[in-house]
């Protein structure tokens, strides 16, 4: 039966954050023996639904002015209804803030068991997922007829467009009841850099950066490498950078080609968010810092001494 995937979009496009979920949905669809049905919800999202149709067999689109904000109160019932109407047996989304907020509520409405933040699909109802801040990998099996899961973005390859373009089916959203919840504003962190979860290079600073102004040199390194800036919880808590830069168990999970940790000790909770990175570089003045245990290349040095040299070295390399 059908595997449904909640697709996040802008007004005109599928968000790349949802492509890993499409991959997970394709894997589930094989086990469930049905098509992949994308679900697009929003206000003025007809163009986005058409774009999303390149990746799935069918898109069910619910377009309504009352759906502009992604409220679990209105979106979860629509997901549950769509699953029933399409004869779906699986529902997946990427483990973004939106997916994590809405899917458990949809699972409740469906009476379905849910596996969070899965890193592998093992069967029609079984998954592998990290627990204990990534210190254990746990195999779980959903026992209900319908299966719900969120997919960790870094562990499923972004889906490529399908062989053919799927049909878009527009459905009336019906009567919406937000239960009094109301979107007020999004205070977005402005950044011209790539998204943390998708960047090929991530440069992160920790408590050792001491103060916000010192992140400028990290930003220079980040931009030189075309990467995204990250931080440890300690650096976020100290107010050096905004909270949405936090990498770790309770922040963002990243797995770039290159992760450079500077002045960052490497608490278990931080490692949980970056240890799947392909190449890890650690620069820390403390030779005993735990970050060195996961680093491919460790340099015992202060950031004050190392970063200007590193920036100069990379510039020189790029100019030759």
């Amino acid at each position, binding site marked *: 039966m059908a595997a449904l995937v909640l697709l996040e979009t802008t007004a005109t496009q599928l968000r790349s954050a949802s492509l890993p979920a499409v991959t997970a949905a394709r894997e589930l669809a094989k086990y469930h023996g049905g098509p992949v049905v994308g679900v697009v919800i929003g206000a003025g999202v007809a163009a986005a639904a058409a774009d999303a149709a390149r990746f799935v067999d069918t898109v069910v689109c619910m377009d309504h002015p009352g759906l502009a904000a992604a409220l679990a*109160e209105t979106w979860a019932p629509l997901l549950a209804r769509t699953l029933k109407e399409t004869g779906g047996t699986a529902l997946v989304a990427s483990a973004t803030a939106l997916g994590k907020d809405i899917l*458990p509520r949809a699972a409740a409405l469906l009476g379905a068991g849910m596996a969070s933040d899965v890193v592998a699909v093992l069967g029609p109802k079984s998954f592998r997922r990290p627990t204990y801040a990534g*210190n254990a990998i746990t195999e779980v099996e959903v026992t209900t007829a319908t299966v719900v899961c969120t997919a960790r973005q870094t562990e499923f390859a972004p889906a490529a467009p399908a062989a053919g373009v799927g049909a878009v089916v527009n459905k009336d959203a019906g009567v919406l009841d937000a239960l*009094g919840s109301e979107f007020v504003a*999004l205070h977005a962190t402005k950044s011209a850099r790539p998204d943390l979860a998708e960047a090929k290079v991530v440069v992160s600073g920790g408590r050792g950066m001491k103060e916000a102004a010192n992140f400028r040199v990290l930003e220079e390194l980040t931009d030189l490498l075309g990467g995204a800036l990250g931080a440890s919880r300690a650096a976020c808590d100290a107010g050096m950078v905004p909270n*949405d830069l936090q990498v770790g168990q*309770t922040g963002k999970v990243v797995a770039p080609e290159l992760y450079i940790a500077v002045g960052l000790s490497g608490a278990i909770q931080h490692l949980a968010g970056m240890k799947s990175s392909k190449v890890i*570089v650690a620069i820390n003045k403390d030779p005993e810092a735990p970050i060195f245990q996961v*680093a491919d290349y460790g340099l015992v040095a202060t950031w004050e001494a190392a970063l200007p040299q590193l920036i100069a070295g990379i510039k020189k*390399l790029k100019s030759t």
Partner: protein
Amino acid sequence: MKILVPCKRVPNPELKLKVAGGAVDLADTTWQVNPFDEYAVEAALRLTEKCKGGERSGEVVVVSIGPKDTATQLRQLLAMGADRAILVGGDDAALDADLVARILKALTEAEKPDLVLMGKQAVDGDDNQVGQILAGYLGWPQATFLSAITLAVDGKSAKVCREVDTGVEERRVRLPAVATVDLRIIGKKAVRNEALAGPEVEWEDTQRLASLKGIMAAKKKGLKEITLDSLGVKASLSVKTLRHDSPPARKAGIKVASVEDLVAKLHTEAKVI
């Protein structure tokens, strides 16, 4: 304002986790309140106070599900200032998010709080589901991953800030509601009950510790132990844990002697710059 705060006990996250033979060995661990839930208790106390340790109005009820020992963690929360505690007997290893949510639904219907406030996830299972499922079962609004909450003066709604991937999202929610908190909820200006405290109110940027006076007072506070049967909840699981394994270890890296060495290795060996 009555606030129900579900709290999970978790193994000490700072201790090295023992994983062997497809299972996690917690025999030698020490147990503590899930940090996010402890922050929820702190936030709930702030919502019932004029200022830290000041005049209070409202009730904070903490609830946990676990073996008898879990009373230790509940007593600690009572010593912090919670008014009473409920312990639902259960086995830590035989719970899933859905069962916890069904238990909390039964308790919420019995206690009728204005707000259920809890951590966004437990740091052992890392599910991040219970609050959302509970809200779904109750048909209540939900406000997840909160970094701030301000209760309206009439106690009928709250303005919240949510931590999302691109920044901070502001919402208004009607009460009663289920809310889950993120780390920043214990910030100095993160929590306020307009009926009790003015905009000038400022808290310490950490959760309070139990004072000696609090510990003595906690001994006299109510801690009710109840069973699943008494709540009419069936102990079935919708997600079964099959096995636990250690994550694949990274191969040991090397220390480089200089920045030049690092740049050279990243270029010629790792080929990432």
